[in-house]
């Protein structure tokens, strides 16, 4: 079986060589008709809900290909399963680089997962583009790892915003934090403490939980016992909803700051239905993507485009905000590829990724642009504050930098 596979690979390899030799000398993964990129995403296992990041992007690429592609090349996007296990990420990424001969690694999901392959990719000078992770290191460590760049606003910056907001508007708060015991939760917490600065003492209680804990009742009770009146919820949706429900059970109504990952309108709707409108009233969060479950965007042309692409190109469940993210990052990749010119090289697309200026992304909030430069390796670093009022989100305060 391996023998047959080897023969097939040999033939395909010869064909590929012939094609390449026939055309102009070009970069790995680039032919005259196609650019091949690849990434890893959890298709199996408990994190498989996040695969919509890849599926949304794939649907967008199919849409772009139907319109002719980029510089007459279609985008061939391969994504492989790593079951959220970094050791499998290493294997799958090596396969993409050495077997599938991709032009670049794109949109791989997970902090630990991308950290596992970063050194390898940079050593081989394979671009590690638009990593799907909120960890600051992907934007901060570009001197050591110039071939790596992230995408989404990072968690630490988000926490910093909340900290600064409290210092400015409610400097006498008693803050309590419910946070997930991993990079995501700890980054948000670290950001909060940075944003509070000298007032870090406002944090009276920090309670963490593990993803495989069944409930956070105990943590909520401890936070209430610490006489907290401002609750930072740095938790994924399941536990974010629990925070509201268990607080209500204790007849406790703190002011809640909800992290962006768990602020989607349908999640807030579940929280409100499980408690009451009063419990969720006044919750503060930040947002940068258009939320597909928020009725405010029902007639928005960008979201109409999103829904039509999801339907026509089978992107999956249209209510999934991760799919919107996937489309946004795919949109940015197309812009970078365009900028890399008629004969894109790996170094060239890295340069394009480091000098982005995309202002027409239909999936991001109006006014948010995708910008990078020699000193700014965070493509998305703007967000809007919003407050939950009477069962829906209301923006306030305008856009500002999440840095």
């Amino acid at each position, binding site marked *: 079986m391996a023998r047959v596979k080897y023969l097939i690979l040999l033939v395909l390899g010869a064909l590929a060589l012939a094609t390449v030799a026939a055309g102009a000398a070009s970069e790995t993964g680039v032919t005259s008709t196609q650019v091949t990129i690849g990434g890893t995403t959890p298709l199996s296992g408990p994190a498989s809900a996040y695969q919509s990041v890849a599926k949304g992007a794939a649907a967008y690429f199919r849409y772009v290909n139907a319109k002719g592609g980029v510089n007459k090349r279609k985008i061939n996007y391969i994504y492989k399963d790593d079951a959220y296990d970094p050791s499998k990420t290493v*294997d799958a990424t090596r396969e993409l680089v050495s077997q599938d001969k991709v032009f670049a690694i794109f949109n791989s999901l997970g902090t630990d997962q991308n950290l596992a392959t970063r050194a390898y990719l940079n050593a081989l000078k394979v671009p590690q583009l638009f990593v799907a992770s909120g960890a600051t290191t992907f934007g901060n460590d570009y001197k050591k790892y110039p071939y790596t760049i992230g995408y989404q606003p990072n968690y630490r910056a988000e926490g910093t915003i909340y900290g600064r907001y409290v210092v400015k508007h409610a400097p006498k708060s008693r803050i309590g934090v419910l946070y997930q015991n991993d990079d995501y939760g700890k980054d948000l917490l670290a950001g909060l403490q940075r944003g509070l600065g000298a007032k870090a003492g406002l944090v009276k209680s920090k309670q963490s939980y593990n993803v495989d804990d069944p409930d956070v009742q105990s943590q909520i009770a401890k936070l209430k016992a610490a006489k907290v009146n401002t609750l930072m919820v740095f938790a994924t949706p399941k536990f974010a909803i629990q925070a509201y429900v268990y607080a209500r059970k204790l007849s406790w109504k703190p002011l809640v700051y909800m992290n962006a990952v768990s602020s989607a309108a349908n999640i807030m709707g579940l929280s409100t239905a499980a408690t009451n409108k009063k419990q969720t009233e006044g919750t503060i969060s930040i947002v940068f993507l258009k939320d597909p479950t928020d009725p405010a965007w029902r007639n928005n042309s960008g979201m109409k485009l999103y829904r039509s692409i999801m339907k026509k190109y089978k992107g*999956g469940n249209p209510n999934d905000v991760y799919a919107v993210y996937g489309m946004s990052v795919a949109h940015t990749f197309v812009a970078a590829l365009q900028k890399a010119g008629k004969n894109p090289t790996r170094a060239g697309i890295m340069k394009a990724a480091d000098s982005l200026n995309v202002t027409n992304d239909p999936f991001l909030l109006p006014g948010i642009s995708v910008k990078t430069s020699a000193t700014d390796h965070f493509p998305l670093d703007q967000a809007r504050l919003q407050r939950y009022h009477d069962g829906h989100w209301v923006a306030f305060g305008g856009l500002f930098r999440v840095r």
Partner: protein
Amino acid sequence: MRSRAPGIAVWLLVAAVVLLAYLFAPRFISDFHSRELAGAGVFFIAIVGLNLLTGYTGQISLGHGALMAVGGYTTAALAVHEHWRDVWTIPLAGVAAGIVGFLIGLPALRLSGLYLALATFAFAIAIPSLLKKFSGLTGGSQGLRLLEDAPLQVTGLSGTVTIFGHTMTQNHFLYYLTWGIGLVGFLIAWLLVRGRVGRTFRAVRDSEVAAASVGINLAWTKTLAFALSGVYAGVAGSLLAIQVEIVNPLSFTFLLSILILVGVVVGGLGSLGGMILGALFVQYLPDLSTHVSTAEGAPDFIFGAAIIVVMLLLPTGVGGFLRRLARPLTTRLYLRP
């Protein structure tokens, strides 16, 4: 009178074929596939070890993934914190996991069958939390990355490795290293099983009371089996860390323990021969499942269904099935005058 000669000749032939296959396989498969085979080799070593425990002394362990974690983290920690060369950590990783296996074996003496299975299950569940807690040593939830923090300790960093004058790619090196150790480990297990240790193990499995009544020290035997299988798991974990050049709590979840156990049972409890097939099953099946369908949930469904189908068709595993097939053959070989 039965002639032993055909029996020995057959085994020597099999050994020669295996040795040749091992030495020359990389010539026939791509560089990348050598790496995939090395991955199967890691499972092979862990599965042979678990078979010694579960197949031969009848003690069920659902925690061997955690023992692999001990081995893998020992290797990574020694490389990153003490600057050991990655390959020289392998024996120590095996010993560390063997010690932990022994420590598990001690309370296991009081627990039987089901409770033992659940206790080892608990250990497998607890390990990621423990790994995250002692983050100074283990790197916490981010784990340890050899390429970033200990690049000089990685064999084959440049892409090629030179041993005894031969130069080969890093992937080939990993293949030869893993399967070389695997074959040696298999040989040791085979010798143990054929000898007195194996008879003692089987006696304990079949009837503890009978074994005790002929003077077998139950406690010593059972903990030895745990320690021994721990050494194998530790070496496997170490080789895994060397192959992927990272260790992370997410790589050592309960799923890994399940996969090793599935590999043992599919391969055939108490049958060393089936273990290679068990390892290949466990290495390639999850990947194949995603090739069949990437619809959400489909890969897991297919993987589970394949496990069930194999168990329904071959309840004693491939090894048991092969033994049933081979019995008429060897009987004939032995009984011919």
